[in-house]
């Protein structure tokens, strides 16, 4: 077990890669009641075309299967794992993203037992035709719930504009039609391919003794017979640099319109420190352009084009990435035009002062400190960073190194007409 010190943050992180390939990280947090643990596989909604374990040919699986599998893993022959966790005073949950599926619990007592339950239930699937069919009704309602949610529709509408072929454009939960094709055999095929310990990461954060917990996980894994795993083969269709369509308007049962603009990322093959620098630079650029202290924000707010729902965000993973800006608005066309102009002014040389850059960096550093108050943030983000060969605790030193030149290069490279798109939700007539 190695120990990594982060002096400025006054944190210590313990790490070990077990013989079956599982990466285990433990971050002791004094003073907290709660222990939070996540067990995550590098498998999400985009991994829909791959060579199943033990086979030769690529297969394409139904949309929404990673998320479906996440639901079904909680059910066992003798009942539901939620029951087990609550008997042990824990609250359990799971989520599926584009690139990850995470199982987690938090508890303030019986932590060893809960950790054992977490690791064992994820590593012991039980799928039957009957329970698979029953789940289709539940997930069907989850899908319908999102269908009625204008913010979700707006977000996915924009991704679908930006991406022509990449599976990031597919809704994580799939559709009622696509999940109807899911069978227990398909679930096992996905499970066996992606849930090998060498494709997973266990993160424990809380008032714990790292030696004791590492011993526990090591012993637990030693009892299980995992064979060495060949590298997983995933396939993604070629994705052009350009967006698929520049604009989409959705009519829904709403009173207030919504408008989101998006910019497709470049350099989506990046990993490690390069990716970290790139995404932090983009985040700082967005802050300079659209943060509450920016001139743009105040202009838009004073004109009544945006309200408190206005936000911006940048996502980048292996193979895809996008920046998004927008929110509720009384005038979705004017907002789209203004935001676009603001972006292109930045591309064509809007200059920021060193003072503004310095302030934006300070803001991000403070936000990072606030975030690491949260065990949930640490576990989830650390895992995401690790799957992309980055280190969460490099955020502050990387931020400190961002220069005005980086900001200029970023805005002149990324902002481009052919990678720009708009999605709007407007009231149904």
């Amino acid at each position: 077990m190695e120990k990594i010190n982060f002096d400025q943050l006054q944190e210590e992180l313990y790490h070990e890669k077990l013989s079956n390939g599982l990466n285990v990280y433990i971050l002791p947090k004094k003073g907290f009641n709660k222990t939070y643990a996540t067990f995550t596989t590098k498998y999400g909604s985009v991994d829909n075309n791959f060579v199943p374990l033990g086979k030769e040919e690529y297969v394409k699986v139904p949309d929404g299967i990673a998320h479906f599998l996440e639901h079904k893993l909680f059910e066992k022959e003798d009942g539901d794992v939620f029951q087990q966790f609550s008997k042990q005073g824990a609250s359990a949950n799971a989520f599926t993203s584009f690139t990850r599926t995470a199982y987690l619990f938090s508890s303030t007592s019986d932590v060893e037992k809960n950790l054992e339950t977490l690791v064992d239930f994820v590593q012991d699937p039980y799928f039957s035709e009957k329970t698979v069919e029953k789940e289709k009704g539940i997930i069907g309602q989850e899908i319908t719930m999102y269908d009625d949610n204008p913010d979700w529709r707006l977000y996915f509408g924009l991704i679908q504009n930006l991406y022509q072929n990449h599976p990031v454009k597919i809704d994580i939960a799939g559709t009622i039609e696509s999940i109807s094709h899911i069978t227990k055999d398909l679930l096992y095929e996905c499970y066996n391919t992606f849930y090998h310990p060498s494709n997973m990461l266990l993160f424990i954060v809380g008032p714990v003794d790292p030696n004791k917990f590492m011993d526990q996980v090591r012993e637990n894994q030693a009892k299980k017979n995992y064979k060495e795993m060949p590298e997983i083969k995933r396939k993604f269709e070629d994705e052009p640099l350009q967006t698929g369509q520049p604009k989409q308007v959705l009519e829904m049962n709403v009173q207030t319109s919504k408008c989101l603009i998006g910019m497709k990322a470049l350099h989506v093959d990046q990993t490690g420190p390069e990716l970290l620098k790139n995404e932090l630079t983009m985040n700082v650029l967005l802050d300079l352009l659209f943060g509450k202290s920016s001139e743009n924000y105040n202009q838009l707010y004073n004109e009544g084009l945006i309200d408190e729902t206005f936000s911006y965000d940048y996502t980048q993973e292996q193979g895809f990435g996008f920046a998004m800006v927008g929110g509720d608005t009384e005038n979705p066309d004017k907002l789209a035009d203004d935001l676009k102009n603001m972006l292109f002014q930045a591309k064509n040389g809007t200059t920021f002062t060193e003072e503004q850059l310095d302030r934006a960096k300070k803001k991000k550093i403070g936000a990072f400190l606030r975030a690491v108050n949260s065990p949930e943030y640490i576990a989830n983000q650390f895992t995401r960073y690790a799957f992309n060969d980055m280190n969460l605790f490099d955020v502050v030193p990387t931020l400190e190194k961002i220069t005005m030149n980086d900001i200029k290069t970023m805005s002149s490279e990324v902002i481009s007409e052919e990678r720009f798109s708009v999605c709007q939700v407007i009231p149904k007539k």
Partner: protein
Amino acid sequence: MDSTAEKITTMQGYKLHVIETDKYKTNTFVWKMKAPLTKEDVTKRALLPQVLQSSSANYPTTTALRSYLDELYGATLFIDLAKKGEYHIISFTLEIANEKFLSDPTPLLKKGFELLSEVLTKPNVSGNAFDQETVNKEKRTLKQRIQSVYDDKMRYSNVRLLQEMCKGEPYALQVNGEAEDVDTITPENLYEYFKNAFSEDELDLYVIGDVKEEEVKSLAENLLKFENRTPKKVVTTEIPKKDQVNEIKEEQDVKQGKLNVGYRTNIVYGDSDYFALQLFNGIFGGFSHSKLFINVREKASLAYYVSSRLESHKGLMMVMSGIDLKNYDQAVGIIRDQLEAMQKGDFTDQELIQTKAVIRNQILETIDTSRGLTEILYHNVVAAKDIKLEQWINDMEKTTKEEIVAVANKIELDTIYFLTGTEAVK
């Protein structure tokens, strides 16, 4: 549980609550203002904090104020409105980095406190009125916020349930006030209301973090001073009993129906059976091991979400679920059966033990965040009680099955609200 060691001091016009803990990398201030919920004031109270946080005397534009917050290592300042029973509560939260984790030694606690004080006591005014432009744009934002409830069907159906269920009671009002009343607010009458609120509301300041009580107290003495007051109490009136269950169906263009069911619990925070009520809610619908989740979702496969929650100061319980339009009768039937089962004592010791463990865990987890801790401690201010967290947990642990059954029999179904689609088939 030393992290809850709350030190309370009566200051001039408000109470200061200091919680010293070294588990965070930031320090948090929460300023709370409480007054009875009334139709007359609710919209002004929703607008006031928005105006105050958008600019101040020394930072007369949002850009100036927000730039200064960024400069203070991205200190966050946000406002929040809540209903607790028939009180309307405004909260200002300011969270700022603790400089011991930074390479820059600027003393941030003091600067954060000064800024909070500036926002609360030195508004951007001219004469006897708030800055006109600020008020205008914040009125627009407030109207949009009120209107946006309609677009979030889960929130909308909850608001509609309360409007129908509590018709004629202040609790039917929404935290953000009413759209038509926004227009009647002027920079003058809002400024007048600002002075009233700061002289009549019950005021509390929570400071949580790696701080020294003495230091906080002396900063507070210098930075925040108000007139002493006796806060107004809500006068609770007897709610006339409904003869029969109120059933409301509303049609809209939605794919999923939203089923919201309201009950009167006849129990509030501070009552001797309040902890039994918490356990009741846990077994009935609060968690993923509860009867509602098991029967509506896992067995009948009718819903993705189904749960119940309590309003502790008003004495309400609300069930919420999203279901297919055609399954209304079946879902309502199953929910009714679960309450009947609870009333007959049809739950196992295992369910009781499990629920105690989960609630205990939930409380301990909640106090791990400075916001959660503040909300738990603030219950005592709202209810004018002094219940310690240890007592909360101990009393809950001692609660018996009989006490929970007694609680179940006090609970009355009041209103069933269903937001249904235009293509509903009957």
